């Protein structure tokens, strides 16, 4: 006996659109079973995890704060993945963006100018982009697998951040806490709308980035180039597009957006640089990108869905008394079901038995 994936002759358009929703539904079912095994009431738990936060203004702002980096990173990753450059290291590019963006608050702490914040953001983006050129360089010149290099560089970035914030950049008056001094008001990314929408400008950056990238992919020759090279390098070469330049373009773009996300988070949400600046935004953004079907507008929606799992996970620790690992399990379910739903739409599973069977009534 063997199991085969057979490509479907005609793919249902409706199912293609419904696939992410189907994945969400399956995640809820699997999550419910998990809560049941943990001895909790499944429906109440899911309600506490995913619905309750939506009725609380504070939670909604937290949701927007968490969605911002997810969307920003995922939009950049979508360009990478559409061109089949597998950048798995957004978490590292995010960290380096946060570090480079924090150079001004650390070394020019007393510099007060409206230029400070824009400069920090630009430096953050440049830092993330520069860090992403390492896997790009390794891929284009040494044919290295970018999945491995970008992933491993993440750990280098994180340990470097750890060393900086516990060592040379540590606030001497931190009373045992590791991290830099708190940023001055000029160095903090302000809320979108004081007191009403307290979420910071990161969300605006994310939505603008998503719309710009959507425009690029939908209407411009550059977007066409991304798609063609992703579908077939040979056809891309025939079109006169350079697969090498596309590696650089996609890595630098996604690195810059991840870096911008990093400095926005540090400046807008945390207020200083510290060892722990991310609940794995860079990895969760991979799920966001695929749940949004690699479409920047879809990613805006999926970014909020994944942000909800973070917020709900935090709330669930208190209200139903489960570990925050629940969040990660939910995210894992989601990625698994998104990818399987997509596969099942394009392929059907055939189980082939190799025993000889007499033909019975096949000529109906």
């Amino acid at each position, binding site marked *: 006996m063997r199991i085969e994936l057979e490509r479907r002759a005609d793919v249902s358009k409706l199912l293609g659109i419904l696939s992410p929703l189907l994945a969400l539904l399956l995640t809820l079912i699997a999550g419910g079973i998990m809560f049941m095994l943990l001895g909790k009431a499944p429906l109440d738990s899911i309600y506490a995890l995913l619905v309750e936060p939506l009725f609380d203004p504070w939670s909604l702002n937290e949701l927007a704060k968490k969605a911002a980096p997810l969307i920003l990173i995922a939009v950049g990753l979508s360009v990478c993945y559409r061109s089949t450059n597998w950048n798995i290291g957004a978490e590292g590019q995010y960290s380096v963006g946060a570090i480079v963006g924090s150079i001004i608050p650390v070394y020019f702490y007393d510099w007060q100018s409206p230029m400070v914040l824009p400069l920090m953001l630009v430096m953050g983006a440049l830092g993330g982009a520069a860090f992403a050129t390492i896997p790009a360089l390794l891929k284009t010149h040494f044919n290295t697998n970018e999945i491995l290099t970008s992933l491993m560089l993440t750990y280098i970035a994180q340990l470097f951040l750890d060393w900086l914030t516990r060592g040379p950049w540590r606030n001497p008056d931190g009373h045992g806490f590791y991290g830099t001094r708190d940023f001055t008001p000029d160095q903090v990314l302000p809320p979108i709308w004081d007191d009403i929408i307290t979420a910071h400008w990161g969300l605006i950056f994310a939505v603008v980035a998503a719309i710009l990238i959507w425009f690029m992919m939908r209407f*411009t*020759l550059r977007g066409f180039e991304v798609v063609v090279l992703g579908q077939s390098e040979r056809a891309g070469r025939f079109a*006169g597009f350079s697969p090498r330049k596309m590696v650089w373009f996609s890595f630098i773009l996604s690195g810059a957006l991840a870096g911008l996300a990093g400095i926005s988070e540090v400046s807008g949400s945390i207020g200083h640089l510290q060892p722990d600046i991310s609940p794995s935004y860079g990895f969760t953004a991979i799920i966001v990108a695929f749940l949004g079907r690699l479409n920047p507008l879809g990613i805006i929606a999926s970014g909020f869905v994944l942000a909800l799992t973070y917020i709900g996970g935090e709330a669930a620790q208190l209200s139903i008394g489960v570990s925050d690992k629940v969040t990660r399990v939910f995210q894992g379910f989601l990625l698994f079901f998104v990818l399987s739903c997509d596969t099942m739409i394009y392929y059907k599973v055939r189980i082939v038995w*190799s025993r000889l069977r007499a033909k019975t009534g096949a000529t109906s």
Partner: protein
Amino acid sequence: MSSSDAPLDGALLSVRKLTKLFGSFAACNEIDIGIQPGEIHALLGENGAGKSTLVKMLFGVLEPTAGEIVWQGQPVSIVSPGEARRLGIGMVFQHFSLFEALTVAENIALSLDDKIPIAKIAEEAAALSIAYGLPLDPYAHVADLSVGERQRIEIVRTLLQNPKLIILDEPTSVLTPQEADKLFETLFKLRAEGRSVLYISHRLEEVQRICDRATVLRHGRVTGACDPKQETTGSLARMMVGSDVASIKHDDRGERGEIQLEIAGLSVPARTPFAVSLKDVSLRVRAGEVLAIAGVAGNGQGELFDVVSGEFPVASDDLIFIRGEAVGTKGITARRLLGAGFVPEERHGHAAVTTLRLSDNLVLARSQSDRKAFLGGGLLQIIRRATVKAATKRISEAMDVRKSGEDPLAGSLSGGNLQKFIVGRELDRQPDVLVVNQPTWGVDAGAASRIRQALVDLARAGSAVLVISQDLDEIFEVATDIAVISEGRLSVSYPADEMNRERIGLLMGGTHGLSSEAEPAHAH
């Protein structure tokens, strides 16, 4: 035996109302065929006629939607290739499945179920290959073998199973005329032993020469069953195509003009271990000429196309000239801007992206040469969909591209229609130089004739055309001049009317000139 209702008594294999649906599309529609013991039975049809689908069902690769397969009077269900082999059906595929890094004997061992020592397999394979006139060294590495020799491995591998029915899918498409003759002798031996052969082809002359009976398919249905020796090629073609195939007209050829494409002593090392290196290749194509390069597959055709198109530029500018400009190091875009057009061999994933629409596939080849028309918005380079769609429509009408809907996905077109579009996409620009690799490979007769006529017309209008092809019929139809490529070496070119199949066959075998028989056409 419950074969009282069978129309073909005594048949080795008979198929009744066999149908295969893909969604709502019937690739095979109620097909009836009977194959007698000891006959060579041809399965004729254009691309997309359902030949491959039918034999895949017979070999257990695809499952029939409806219908019955009767093997020696017993209805059977063939669920896997292993099952087919056990029944006594062997198949030699068009595309071989061999490991290049392994030896012949090792490759054969991989296809056998039992754990027989390699030495024994080698011995048996050697014995079989001698008995059937298929010389083969069991200890040679596949990577070192020619395509013809690789095919012999597949045949010997099949014969080791002692099959009663052997299915051959387009076996001569990769062979020289001489190699094909050898294969036919083997087939006659098999027939004399009482084995049956199901021979798939679209080469009518071959079928007439070797086959006892023929079944013709068109659009998934049987349109004729006949004795091919009683038919003319014309009448067989009519059954295949459904109408008369236009013959190529090139009576009044235009004047020869300036040299438009030149390669001067080009040598290129192989890019991968299994690629062919080009060795001191020189050629010239003048305006008004169609230079056809004949050769058996895998002798450097793809590599030659890659360097002429500029997808893989070469080390120095003065090795390749397009319209007098030295372009060796320039990429494909620069060469297109000089007025050259290119049609690669592989449609799927090289000349076209099947998951994109036809209009996108127009942008693929012409985003830079038609920048002014197709792109707007300055540096943003926004694709002007309306203009591109209008051009797509124009090309489809000019080349009679049959498609479902206004702008379907390229992958939904049949091979012939997609190829017409890919060729038409270049012709629409009126290129001064056109380089085409295998212009009608796997394309139905109607589309092939249309494409060939377009190439001839383009040259007559004053362009230089370079055609790389394995199909000798095609070469004689379109060429004004013929050269032959063999192991990465290109012969000098000869006027087409001085060439015939035998002389091309000699050049294919590696004799790099016919100087003893004829003077070269152009004393460059």
